[in-house]
């Protein structure tokens, strides 16, 4: 349909200047529910895009569509100019798109280290280094099912990192962390960008955290993009304040 005809003539729509990841007019329906409504966004190589919006606005759905868990109802996802919409997660993982989950999903009966051994290794860092990086160095031999909720999130992140993603999608990694821990996490993410040139989409409700991490934000409301630009401008935008910040 739309996606096909569009991909048949890619030259018509020249990709935005050096955008690594592009979401083009994606709509996603769940029955009658329009969870995403013609959402478009682009992220450049090495850029961190913050994705914010009230609960249920469609942030996770965007991540799900980009990462191949869901196929878009219409519209498409481009990686490096190639249409990757609807490809199986494992193929995307091997092509350099990976993610974490809002509710972490490790392999509970395997140790943290084994959780990483499972993965297709695509990056330059060793498993040990990655565990150190996310702060699980001391818990490598613990069963994943015995870790705390937030440690499981770190493990989720580590598992994504092992595959050596170019694009990392992070879904509310900061939820449930203390202030100190949030600061540590922000440092980790920035290091990934700086040292490995990673590109990120970060879903987060904690503005203090995004301030440290994101270069730019896109605000969703009811499945539609209502703002795109710098974080401080977003926080001053009346529409954003109304639906998201409150006050």
């Amino acid at each position, binding site marked *: 349909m739309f996606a096909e005809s569009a991909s048949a003539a890619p030259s018509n729509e020249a990709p935005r200047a050096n955008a690594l990841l592009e979401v083009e007019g994606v709509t996603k329906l769940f029955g009658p529910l329009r969870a995403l409504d013609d959402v478009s966004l682009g992220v450049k190589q090495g850029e961190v895009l913050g994705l914010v919006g009230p609960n249920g606005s469609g942030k*996770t759905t965007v*991540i*799900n569509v980009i990462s191949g*868990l869901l196929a878009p109802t219409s519209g498409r996802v481009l990686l490096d100019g190639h249409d990757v919409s609807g490809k199986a997660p494992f193929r995307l993982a091997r092509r350099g798109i990976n993610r974490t*989950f*809002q*509710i972490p*999903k490790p392999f509970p009966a395997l140790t943290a280290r084994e959780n990483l051994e499972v993965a297709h290794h695509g990056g330059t860092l060793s498993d040990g280094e990655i565990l150190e990086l996310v702060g699980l160095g001391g818990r490598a031999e613990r069963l994943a099912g015995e870790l705390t909720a937030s440690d499981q999130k770190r493990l989720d992140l580590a598992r994504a990192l092992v595959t050596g993603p170019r694009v990392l999608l992070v*879904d509310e990694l900061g939820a449930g962390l203390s202030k100190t821990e949030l600061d540590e996490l922000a440092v980790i993410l920035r290091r990934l960008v700086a040292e490995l040139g990673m590109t990120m989409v970060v879903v987060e409700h904690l503005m203090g955290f995004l301030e440290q991490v994101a270069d730019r934000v896109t605000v969703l409301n009811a499945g539609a993009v209502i703002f795109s630009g710098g974080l401080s401008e977003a926080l001053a935008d009346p529409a954003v304040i109304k639906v998201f910040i409150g006050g």
Partner: protein
Amino acid sequence: MVLYALIAGVLIGLFYGFAALGLSLAFGVLRVVNIAHGDVIVLGSYLAYELSTQAHINPLFAIPIAVPLAVAIGMVFYRFVAPSLGRSKDPEMLSLILFFGVSQVIEALATIGFSVNQDTLLTGPVGNASVQIFGQSFPNYYPVAAAVAVPGALLVMFYLYRSRLGLATRALMSSRADAMLSGIDVGRTSALSFGIALALAASAGALSIYVNGGVSPSQGTDLTTTAFAVVVIGGLGNPAGALAGGLVFGLAEQFAQSYEPNWAGMVPYVLLLAVMLVKPEGLLSRRVRYA
């Protein structure tokens, strides 16, 4: 012929659905794979048989007798095995072994108690007259079985979807820990569901002795298989799904018998496969998002 197969398929299908209800409930609520389900049906059939031949009571009275009996036995039994199932890492599979053993025990006891021969009831549930439906003549137990099955399933639906206890039961299906946190007495509710599941099986036995042309101790495995197929077609844990699955199974079987009898044994299973591949969670089921 078309009409006959259609009506017979619907009537027998409703019976199949009813015969599968208990299995669906036990699996859906308790994650218990009750391999002995068919053997409980067999016990129900023997109860009906004994009532009719020894006490000269209408065999359908087996149902009101079996229900409280089965609920009581089921509750006690479940209380007895629940701790072991609860401790297990994979309770589903443990229940499979456990009930495989139970099934062996029931079949052995039935063999010792009732001998290996097939036993048949010569008088129908409402006399021996056949029944005319749209000009076709059917054994009267076809509509009787359907007439018991439909309100039976409705009752189960009422219990699950309209009663407080049913809400508790479904909560339990969804998450044990969160059910406890809602103040639900998980042990009692589970035991009761298991009891009801057995009662449904035993009740189906009073009809099965007619529909399946008699009862014998070794029938259990086949009945379990059919019930499983029916439940899976319809979707686990959903009474309406069981009835839908029963209809699909019954119609497939009867139409095949009418047109391709030598493939009739295969047809319901091939159909089951087809349904599974098109709708992997069964015809009537709700999916939950992953992330």
